[in-house]
């Protein structure tokens, strides 16, 4: 049975492919140890070109302009370098307005690729480069504890874990943060306070792990330079008991946050990773676990949103009070209660 899956693993091996959106340059070699924030590849993601009208600048017909051009295709120019001329009694010249490389010159025009800061892709987790993908990226392998979330703001950083959420239903307010938080990765519960997101920027936190967050804070969180990962969902939801228990045991440990936003198609999820030295016999984190009896699950929809339990029975088509008829499962919740839930509303936890 097919169901969305989330990994909450105290010890595992993970392999993550880190690929540039466009072809670029891989900066590491196979076998190299990398840190989470180390640049492993770069590319010119936001290229900038200038089209220069040489003929107009020189005041000559387009078909004559090429004869006055002083540089060649592929040549690197500095700002104010002379590109073409002089022409005529006024000795008109055209200078390079910016530093860049000549890409093409034709028809009295020249295309200049402006030197720009390349996009630098970070490793996202500490580990070893086990495979190179030419011009595109690498595969990094690492071992340790892994927790996956549901939303991330795209940032990457690492630090040590400090726990504000002593209980799963913790709610963070801005006064919880002060100078002693500086440089830490903070674990908090539910966030409904925009001031918290401003404070983490001011205090230069290395990361914020939240159990849940109000969805209206998403635009603000998305802009934060600090990696933010939401573990469970939007609106007030407790941290899953399995995640919370694991995180409590990892207080003050080194942690890497890759807050990539979740993508259903690519399977990418934001991840919290605690590197550790483990025996080589540990199994890799699974890509897929089927929904079966005795499987641990979390309910993702009301009325038991966030509750964790175990599948006791997979039932056939079942009718629900609002009229829905669909396949369902009987779940034994952690608090001892039982509930019948549509299979579609279950997330497999491992």
């Amino acid at each position: 049975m097919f169901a969305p899956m989330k990994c909450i693993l105290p010890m595992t091996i993970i392999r993550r492919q880190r690929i540039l959106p466009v072809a670029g340059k891989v900066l590491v070699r196979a076998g190299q140890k990398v840190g989470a924030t180390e640049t492993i590849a770069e590319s010119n993601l936001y290229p900038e070109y200038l089209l220069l009208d040489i003929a107009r600048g020189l005041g000559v017909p387009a078909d004559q302009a090429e004869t006055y051009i002083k540089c060649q295709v592929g040549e690197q120019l500095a700002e104010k370098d002379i590109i073409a001329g002089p022409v005529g009694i006024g000795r008109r010249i055209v200078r390079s307005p910016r530093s860049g490389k000549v890409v093409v010159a034709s028809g009295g025009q020249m295309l200049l690729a402006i030197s720009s800061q390349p996009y630098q892709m970070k490793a996202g987790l500490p580990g070893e480069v086990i495979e190179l993908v030419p011009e595109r990226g690498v595969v990094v392998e690492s071992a340790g504890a892994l927790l996956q979330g549901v939303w991330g703001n795209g940032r990457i950083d690492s630090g040590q874990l400090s726990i504000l959420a002593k209980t799963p239903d913790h709610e963070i307010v801005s006064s919880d943060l002060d100078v002693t938080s500086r440089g830490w990765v903070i674990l908090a519960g539910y966030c409904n306070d925009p001031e918290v997101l401003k404070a983490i920027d001011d205090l230069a936190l290395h990361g914020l792990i939240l159990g849940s967050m109000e969805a209206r804070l998403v635009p603000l969180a998305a802009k934060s330079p600090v990696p933010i990962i939401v573990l469970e969902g939007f609106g007030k939801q407790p941290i899953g008991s399995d995640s919370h228990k694991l995180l409590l045991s990892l207080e003050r440990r080194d942690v890497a946050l890759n807050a990539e936003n979740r993508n259903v198609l690519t399977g990418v999820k934001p991840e919290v990773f605690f590197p550790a030295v483990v025996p080589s016999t540990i199994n890799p984190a699974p890509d897929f676990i089927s929904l079966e009896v005795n499987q641990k699950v979390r309910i993702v929809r009301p009325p038991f949103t966030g509750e964790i339990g175990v599948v006791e029975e997979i039932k056939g088509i079942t009718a629900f009070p609002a009229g829905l008829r669909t396949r369902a499962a009987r779940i034994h919740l952690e608090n001892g209660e039982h509930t019948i839930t549509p299979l579609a509303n279950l997330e497999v936890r491992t």
Partner: protein
Amino acid sequence: MTSLIDAESLLVVDVGSVTTRAFLFEVVDLRYRFIASGAAPTTAGAPYHNISEGVRLALDHLHQVTGRTFVGTDEQLIMPASADGSGIDKFAATISVGEPLRVVIVGLLEDISLESARHLASTTYAKVVQSISLNDHRKTDTRLNTILRLRPDMIIAAGGIENGASQSVLKLLEAIGLAGYLQPDRQRPEVLFIGNQAIQPEIRSTFENTMNLHFAPNIRPSLDREQLGPARAELARNYCQVCSQRIPGVVELNTWAKGGLVPGATAFGRVIRFLSKELTTQKGVLGVNLGASAAIIAAAFNGDLSLGVFPQFGLGTSLVDMIDQVPVRDIMRWLTIDLSEDDLIDYVYNKALYPTSLPVSLEETAIEQALARQALYSATRLAVQGFPGQAVYPGDGLLPWFEAIVSTGSILAQSANLAQAALMILDSLQPCGVTTLVLDQNQISSALGAAAAANPVLAVQVLESNSFLHLGTVIAPVGQAHAGSPILRLKMTYESGHEASLEVKKGTLEVVPLPAGQTARLQLQPLHRCDVGMGAPGRGGTLRVSGGALGLIIDSRGRPLVLPEDLKRRKDLYRKWLWTLGGQ
């Protein structure tokens, strides 16, 4: 192409963004019939990253339902059907999975060619990420940088009426040609040129080495004429091509379909256009398909189709886009439960995280139906702008007269009862005059459209069968009367000779029993110059109407529909309306 008229069985697979469905059609008593369907989650995403697994699971499900085997031990379709009953004679497929195409539109003038290019882009699963025109005053290099940074999947370039502008069009294409020159072959976007056909040879010779060029007839052959049809077909082919490149398994599916894979929206549009021809009416046929990937609005008038695909109003992962596009208060007006704006936004974000999840409680159902109403309402209002010129409107901001409205999509087809489905359709579309509501409960419309390309007979025969559910005829008077004033007198004469009379007051929703399979003669007399689409405001007449699952529905709640701000009153009204329609 061989006609399917000789075939005895047809299998159609529809790969949606959430669900993959397999439909079996077969000849029974010399007529095509819809036999059964199977469904499975679409597997384009993790962990499979290949749609083939979802297709296989959907076929397995269909096998469980029908007992028929479709795939051999070699994992290939058994085609044609064999003597032992396994396999099928023909296969067709539709697709709507994946991110919408990222499209840059290019045109000379903002309100002419660029507008037509925008209309064309809206006929498939696409998102316009940038527009370039003569009016935007950006330099060529600024346009070039924009294209390179956006990395579109496709560029739709229009401009120049037939034998009109040429140099200005070529000038606009400069930046696109340069972008192509600077990009590796595999990263170049597809470029669809749909402008002045006279310059096609020059475009081909100038840009064929730097662009992946495609051509279609001019979408704006003259200033006052827009012609989207041929370009729409070419865009649909391009959409499938891009899907083939980026979604594993699509190539194999298209091979099974012998290259005939079509976008789900295109196939849906075909069925609606087809119905508009079959019904031979002055009024049009409206089709709405509300799925996870998009809201699709198809309106056809005598075979002239307007197709609108709105990914921003899909009920799947793109739900959060709706929050960006529509004020939350607009969604709140449909709610019948007490919910804060923040809670609604949280709900939308959580639903987008788990698009396959289902509402269990009455409260969740109310939220999802409110979202569906707003999605259909917003998509229809956008689509109306592109409706054909022959559409006749009863008033500003209102829907044109339609003879029939065909609705589908999981939230409508699988609602708890027909009353809920009908009320969602009536609230969001707000049809005017006399129309019939048809519900495609089996969600076979797109499959029929895919099949109809090769064999219209199949589509006709299946549509004539009882595969679609006739909900009922709707009478919706349009006028300015006060709430509570009588606006319509009607007399219905049943086949049995029995008569029923009713005076309808403004602001009410009434049902007159008329079971499916029966017809009746209906005499209408609008009051207060209300318009029921019989030629002019206040004009009445007699017509024959067909029965349906809900009977004859008289929706005199007003156009546009204005719901009470007060939640309790709104809740009471909805309870009453649902009860009137036979639901709860």
